[in-house]
């Protein structure tokens, strides 16, 4: 909102985990690092509420199904729609496109019952991957994280060590972890602690 209050001037941006460094822990057995974490700072996020009646407009702007099947992500290129509930989804898009995209979607849906909210700065996305990523997440999450039960393309809103998160499986050993920006330092600290026995690397 800084640009609204001060005209053209924007306050300098800062990602949720900027400045966090020096957290790496070598794998105790000297082998491969079990968990690698990276902040995906550049990704636009729009929360969309509405029923299937708005699906065509969403499709026009994203090429993705709305809503995706329960607990699933629908993707088209750099745009993804993450299922959050029966009439709620999270649209992920290219960084910097979210304001324009939200405006266009809202304009095309004028008069219909829906809500599109830019939540880019409210949420922090972490890419967590590595051979032991499922074992680490399982320490703080009650989901069945077996690859056969939670495979690529699946998502879930759940609790990771008391913090509300959205978990998206992008590959067998790779996840996107979306938490609130204010919970990002806590979530990162917890991941480091949980990964001590496997080795931990954080790239800001």
């Amino acid at each position, binding site marked *: 909102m800084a640009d609204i209050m001060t005209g053209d001037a924007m306050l300098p941006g800062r990602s949720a985990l900027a400045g966090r460094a020096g957290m790496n822990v070598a794998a105790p057995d000297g082998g491969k690092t079990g968990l690698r974490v990276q902040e995906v700072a550049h990704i636009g996020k729009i929360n969309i509420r509405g029923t299937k009646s708005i699906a065509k407009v969403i499709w026009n702007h994203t090429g993705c199904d709305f809503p995706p099947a*329960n607990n699933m992500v629908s993707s088209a290129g750099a745009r993804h729609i993450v299922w959050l*509930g*029966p009439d709620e989804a999270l649209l992920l898009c290219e960084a910097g496109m979210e304001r324009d995209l939200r405006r266009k979607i809202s304009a095309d849906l004028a008069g219909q019952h829906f809500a599109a909210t830019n939540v880019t700065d409210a949420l922090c996305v972490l890419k967590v991957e590595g051979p032991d990523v499922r074992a680490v997440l399982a320490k703080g999450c*009650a*989901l069945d994280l077996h690859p056969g039960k939670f495979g690529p393309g699946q998502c*879930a*809103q*759940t*609790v990771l060590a008391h913090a509300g998160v959205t978990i998206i499986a992008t590959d067998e050993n790779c996840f996107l972890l979306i938490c609130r920006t204010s919970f990002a330092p806590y979530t990162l600290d917890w991941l480091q602690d949980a990964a001590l026995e496997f080795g931990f690397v954080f790239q800001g």
Partner: protein
Amino acid sequence: MLIINCPHCGPREESEFACGGEAHIARPLAENSISDAEFADYLFLRDNPKGLFLERWRHSAGCRRWFNIARDTVSHEIIEVYPMGALPRKKDALATHAASWRRDTAAEKAAERAAQKAQKPAQKPAQKPARQKAAAKKAPGKRGGK
């Protein structure tokens, strides 16, 4: 720990949910037509039975949607999960609903009357505009009289 089958997300751990207490408590919209004591039935009195109980739950850490559960408070067995606004289908759960003391309260009967009243204008849509016109004609006269 219970594993609760969210109607939208599937089986999840109990810690993701919040219990909203007794289900099927209708708000008596026509509050003035019942006594304070009868309104208190709606506002304050909650059942705490030993055995089958119909409860509202919310998947607060997941999809954040409300739904109903028929649960045995002794064994914690979940007999049925069913949507808000619906009645359970399982025989035992339906019997529990019918047998509740709440079915006989003035508060619930007032809620039923209000619900029926709310449905009536929809059944006779032709009369509504006429009434509104009449009200609009009367209104300026009333204001002028003050």
